[in-house]
């Protein structure tokens, strides 16, 4: 083995050893920090299909970059050529040396600097095939490097309006990474010029360069440069965004084994944090960025600041928590969870006194109520929604009660989103008691914020429905009927209902019964944030208005007569600036109720139960 040695390989060996040591230390530390109960879970999942699934996902996402291809083919090609191309270079290089030497174990650097050590041209057809393949693969990777350089200066080529601002570590790693492959091409070509061991690209290029340059001397310098860049890149990797290359692989395995970040920051959160490649795909979709021009708060920067331990509270706070970034993230990092954890951490001791709620009780009379309606704070400011729901409930003939008719107790989600989980629990506990005292089997709410809160934090053992789900059921079961009109209706998905609770179909099914559903580009998972979000405590009024204006003008420009939504907050936000009428689905249904059907079916209901203030 010593026969294949030259001092120029040392920078590579140093960099590589450093990288392996750093990764071993970091990963074992994070692995130990995993939440209690994770380790047995991994053990039991290790020898199962989950591991095979993880391998498949690693191939598709880490090498092929399938998700990025879906976002933009050019961007996908760039990532694939670098990742998959480099992987194949390593693989083919290893195979070539294996066939050449007949030994599997060679010095780690031997395949990388193969053409420096073995100057004789290959004799066998098989080895020549490898030589040609290696040249083509290098070309493949270089095309990715070219795209990456173009992207840095003109990001629109790859479908991104804006690309990420880099840190010093990133720039160092990026420069060395860009230099690695051109230097490899140069070294191999110059060596081919005097030895003739090149192939379809390196040989002609080498012959050309050798015709006017001292190839042998320059080749040696170039091999040094190549080794230094490789070593430099590997040494910089743990401090740069390229940490995502090894980390994403581990994250995919952990995820497939069922290990996620829960409510607390743990070892897996570290894997998530370092798996961010700072690709910047989250920047363009962020409502705070697009409409308000603030480029410090997006997830890519949030995670970077968190990683470098210089995260400011104002950054953590300045987010709508609309979840659009999470939806497009090619690494599928649970971004809003990460931010929520930081919000929870930054809060001081509870500062509230809700003792006035103790006086409120629920007077449950006979007969028992079936459906309990909770309008929510925001619906009280959109009386149209509240009244429509009452009209629909009356028409359905169901025995219902209106829990917060005299005014709602906040569901607690706004406090929770601001990091005040303990205080939010006081509110949810109170509401929970009132809800359970009603004896209803179904809880219906008009507010997606309350809905998400009920579903996630209340641990109720009754059915929880958003009013779109409830109305859809009523229509399907023919408990109400509506008259269809010809009006064209575009539906705006509220964040908390769509991305937050995965309710996309019921609102659309209702709209198809009311009128014509108009499709538009930014719907379902790609729906925009209306700007009204209660999750952002730092955005200024004018910034908020810009977001509201932008989404309103987008929706107004769709070929529709009515803009429909299913959230009082969205209705208010869009309604302020929209040029077309904005209606909640409940309002559309209530105004289209078939009166003749009602007269036969509806029993005049009384509200049986109500809140009592002592």
């Amino acid at each position, binding site marked *: 083995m010593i026969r294949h040695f030259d001092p120029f390989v040392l920078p590579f060996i140093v960099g590589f050893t450093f990288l392996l040591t750093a990764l071993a230390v970091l990963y074992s530390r994070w692995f130990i920090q995993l939440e209690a109960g994770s380790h047995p879970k991994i053990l039991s999942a290790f020898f199962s299909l989950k591991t095979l699934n993880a391998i498949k996902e690693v191939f598709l996402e880490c090498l092929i970059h399938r998700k990025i291809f879906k976002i933009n083919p050019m961007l996908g090609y760039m990532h694939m050529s670098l990742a998959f191309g480099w992987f194949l270079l390593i693989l083919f290089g290893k195979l070539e040396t294996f066939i050449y030497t007949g030994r599997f174990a060679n010095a780690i650097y031997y395949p990388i600097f193969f053409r420096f050590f073995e100057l004789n041209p290959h004799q066998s057809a098989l080895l020549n095939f490898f030589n040609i393949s290696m040249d083509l693969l290098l070309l493949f990777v270089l095309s990715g490097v070219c795209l990456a350089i173009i992207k840095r200066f003109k990001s629109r080529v790859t479908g991104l309006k804006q690309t990420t601002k880099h840190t010093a570590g990133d720039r160092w790693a990026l420069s060395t990474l860009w230099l690695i492959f051109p230097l490899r091409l140069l070294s191999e070509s110059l060596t081919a010029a005097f030895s003739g061991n090149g192939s379809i690209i390196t040989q002609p290029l080498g012959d050309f360069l050798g015709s006017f340059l001292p190839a042998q001397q320059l080749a040696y310098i170039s091999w040094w440069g190549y080794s230094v860049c490789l070593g430099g890149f590997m040494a910089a990797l743990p401090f740069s965004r390229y940490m995502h290359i090894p980390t994403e692989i581990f994250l995919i395995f952990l995820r497939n084994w069922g290990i996620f970040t829960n409510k607390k920051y743990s070892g897996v959160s570290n894997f998530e944090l370092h798996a961010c490649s700072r690709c910047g795909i989250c920047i363009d979709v962020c409502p705070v960025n697009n409409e308000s021009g603030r480029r410090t708060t997006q997830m890519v920067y949030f995670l970077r600041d968190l990683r470098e331990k210089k995260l400011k509270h104002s950054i953590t706070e300045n987010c709508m928590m609309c979840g659009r970034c999470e939806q497009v993230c090619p690494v599928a990092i649970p971004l809003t969870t990460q931010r929520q954890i930081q919000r929870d951490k930054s809060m*001081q001791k509870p500062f*509230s006194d809700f003792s*006035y709620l103790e006086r409120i009780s629920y007077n449950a009379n006979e007969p028992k109520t079936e459906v309990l309606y909770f309008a929510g*704070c925001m619906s009280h400011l959109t009386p149209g929604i509240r009244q429509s729901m009452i009209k629909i409930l009356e028409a359905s003939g169901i025995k219902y009660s209106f829990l917060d008719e005299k005014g709602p*107790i906040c569901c607690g989600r706004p406090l929770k989103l*601001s990091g005040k989980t303990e205080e939010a629990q006081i509110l949810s506990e109170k509401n929970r008691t009132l809800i359970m005292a009603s004896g209803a089997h179904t809880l219906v709410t008009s507010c997606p914020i309350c809905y998400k809160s009920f579903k996630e934090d209340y641990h109720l053992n009754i059915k929880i429905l958003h009013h779109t789900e409830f109305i859809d059921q009523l229509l399907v079961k023919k408990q109400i009927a509506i008259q269809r009109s010809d009006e064209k209706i575009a539906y705006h998905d509220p964040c908390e209902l769509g991305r937050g609770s995965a309710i996309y179909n019921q609102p659309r099914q209702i709209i198809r019964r009311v009128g014509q559903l108009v499709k538009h580009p930014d719907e379902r998972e790609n729906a925009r944030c209306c700007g009204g979000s*209660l999750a952002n405590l730092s955005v200024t*009024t004018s910034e908020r208005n810009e977001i509201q204006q932008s989404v309103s003008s987008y929706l107004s420009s769709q070929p529709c007569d009515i803009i429909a939504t299913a959230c009082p907050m969205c209705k208010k936000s869009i309604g302020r600036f929209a040029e077309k009428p904005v209606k909640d689905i409940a309002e559309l249904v209530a105004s289209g109720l078939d009166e003749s059907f009602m007269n036969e079916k509806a029993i005049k209901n009384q509200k049986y139960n109500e809140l009592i203030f002592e």
Partner: protein
Amino acid sequence: MDNNDFSLSVALAAIEPSFAWCIGCGSCTATCSAAQFTEFNPRKINLLIQRGEVAAIKQELKKCMLCGKCQLICPRDVNTRKIIQNLKRIMQ
């Protein structure tokens, strides 16, 4: 008047300029979820801060549920939740 503490008023206006836009219409108080159940008056809190009578508001602030109705109703677009949130942070 000489004993009044205007530092809070100045600090708040620096954090959130819309603090000064309030016309005292009382919409926030009329719509407030907490005010349905107890004595709680966002308008009065604003007035007390502007007058520099800050001692009285600490206990009052604790009643806010942060639901955001006041912000939605405000005709002057005052960023009420941001103000309350920062007030809580300062007073804590």
